[in-house]
């Protein structure tokens, strides 16, 4: 029982990371039709700069971590918005080329990160509580899992509130459904493109800082690893659906944990099989709109 609980909570924590990446991917794809391969790089740059600033302010304390998280979110948002504004926008409505640009950006930036911070992981200092465990029903749960879950839940709540309660949120929801009709109502939908990139970038940036807490290190490949799973989560959840991304994040991560434990470390394979199965049975994903 305690093992199951540990696996579930660890799965939720990992799912929280997936969600932070997948939420942006899903919104960006849903609204703009852009498959953003550079999303992992938003996460990585935010993790690095967040860590660089955080350790200078106060290394290994809650205060330092908070600074890291804020800096990470800002960096993620700014880099993402700049990507949209300077690169993606130039290829308006040319989805393949837009995806290709992000591929090039991902390759170039990962190489750049390696050049600056090296190829090896850099181990980070964390507040002490995060390195300890809490016992729940006999299961010793590492505390960082709770932080991840809480943060992802806050982000999910925040984005949902934004989408439901603000005019921009309304525009984004409408744009995901029928972008050209939104412009035909006199709305400059491109402004919300930049906004969606910024939101996705901020979530990924927070994800980057939290990933460095979860894994205990930062590295140039932090984003690339998470990106593949985030893609899978996005597709399983249904492209463009935030709720779908949230549900799929948890399902995928928990499934992965259980397979890793009970099926001899086959978590990655099981996830891939799950993706193939979902796509074949229900090509639009769990919550995707009818394409």
């Amino acid at each position, binding site marked *: 029982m305690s093992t199951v609980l540990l696996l579930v909570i660890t799965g939720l924590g990992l799912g929280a990371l997936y969600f932070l990446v997948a939420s942006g991917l899903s919104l960006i*794809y849903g609204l703009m039709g852009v*498959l953003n*391969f550079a999303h992992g790089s938003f996460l990585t740059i935010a993790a690095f700069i967040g860590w660089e600033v955080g350790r200078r302010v106060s290394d290994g304390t809650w205060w330092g971590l908070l600074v890291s998280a804020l800096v990470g979110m800002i960096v993620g948002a700014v880099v993402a918005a700049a990507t949209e504004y300077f*690169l993606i*926008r*130039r*290829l*308006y409505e*040319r989805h*393949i*080329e837009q995806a*290709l*640009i992000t*591929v*090039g*950006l*991902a*390759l*170039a*930036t*990962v*190489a*750049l990160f*390696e*050049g*600056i911070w090296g190829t090896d992981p850099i181990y980070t200092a964390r507040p002490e509580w995060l390195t300890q465990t809490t016992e729940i029903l006999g299961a010793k749960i590492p505390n960082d899992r709770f932080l991840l879950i809480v943060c992802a839940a806050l982000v999910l709540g925040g984005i949902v509130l934004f989408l439901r309660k603000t005019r921009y949120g309304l525009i984004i929801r409408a744009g995901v459904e029928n972008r050209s009709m939104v412009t035909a109502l006199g709305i400059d939908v*491109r402004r919300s493109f930049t906004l969606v990139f910024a939101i996705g970038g901020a979530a990924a940036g927070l994800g980057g800082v939290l990933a460095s807490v979860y894994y205990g290190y930062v590295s140039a490949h932090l984003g*690339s690893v998470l990106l*593949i799973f985030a*893609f*899978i989560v996005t*597709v399983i959840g249904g*492209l463009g659906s935030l709720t779908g991304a949230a549900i799929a994040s948890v399902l995928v991560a928990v499934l992965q944990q259980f397979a890793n434990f009970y099926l001899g*470390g086959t978590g*990655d*394979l099981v996830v*891939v*099989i799950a*993706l*193939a199965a979902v*796509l*074949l049975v229900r*090509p639009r994903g769990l919550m995707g709109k009818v*394409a």
Partner: protein
Amino acid sequence: MNQQLTDSAPASTGSATEAPAPAPDGRAGGATSGRRPLVLLIGGIALVVVLAILPLLAIEIPGVLPGPTYTPGTLQLLAYAMLIAALALSYRMMFGLAGLLSFGHALFFAAGAYGLGMALEYFAPVEWQSELIFLASIVVTLIFGIVLAATVGSLALRVTGISFAMVTLAFAQAGSVLIRRNPGGATGGDEGLSLDIANVPDALVGVLNTRNLYWLSLGILVFVYLVVLWVERSRAGHVAEATRENELRVRVLGIRPYQVKFLIFIVASTLAAIAGMGYLLLQSGASPRVATADFTLTILVIVVLGGVGYRWGAIVGGIVYTLLDQRLTALAGSDFIAGLPAVLRVPLSEPLFILGTLFILVVLFLPGGIAGIPQRIRTGRKQHPVESEEAADA
């Protein structure tokens, strides 16, 4: 490589990015000048002949090649470039001709490389003639590649567009994970698989025989080119192209695009496996890198860099990319770079950074890729279809 120029000139057959002429008519344009195909055929054959006798010559191109063309190092690099070109060519057939954006092409290249390596190891204890074992291993690997392609293709092609890309990515990821996991010590995990040379013909082993491997690679490239040409000229090729342009119209004509796509998927994947086998022999081993999604992305970059609309674009892209990658790595380690201030030194010492940036610039400013440059010069600078008011308004 014989006829590659034939259709680049008239209408960039199957150009996804430029499409200067209506696609269905593009092919007919080849007949406008009756003599050109012949000239180009001869030119193509001449080019292959020149490439074939390169190992016997001592041509030096400083800055591009690491040494004279007869040296093993240079031949090795050129052979590798040609195999990558062959792989890119097979990918272009799928992406450029049939419009199938796969993120799993590396899987089949890896299947060829690892398949042959594992087959050779598996057959090693068998008491057959060495040549027979080598041949049997190749046949087994080919069959494995075809079965794998048929399996993945039949599943992935049930969905289209981005979902297709994702399913192929998922399979490739599974393959990559399997290879890294090293089940039963068969793949060598992160270390990679080293070639068991016991049953490989002596002519294909050792530094001194690099020129044989070079010729083998050239042969693979020419073979892949001819197969791709044959598929494109076939009825299936025409249907695939028409499907890419307008699937509905093809369906209305009563043709089922699925079968054509499936066929092209299998042929392209098998060609990738063949290139993979050449890679194993050339490198005397296989590295798990060739199974990763990054490797597929690299192939995609190569095809786009060369020009999606052109067969020879994939070849040019493959060769340019490989040489750039190699030379940039050499440049990164040079004294010149080491002497630069950090702001310049760090990015310039990362070949992938330069290639990635170059790629972005090509996508933004050179939609036809390298192979599209002559076309652009002929027709004048083609306006990017970014609407002018969009830019002005931004």
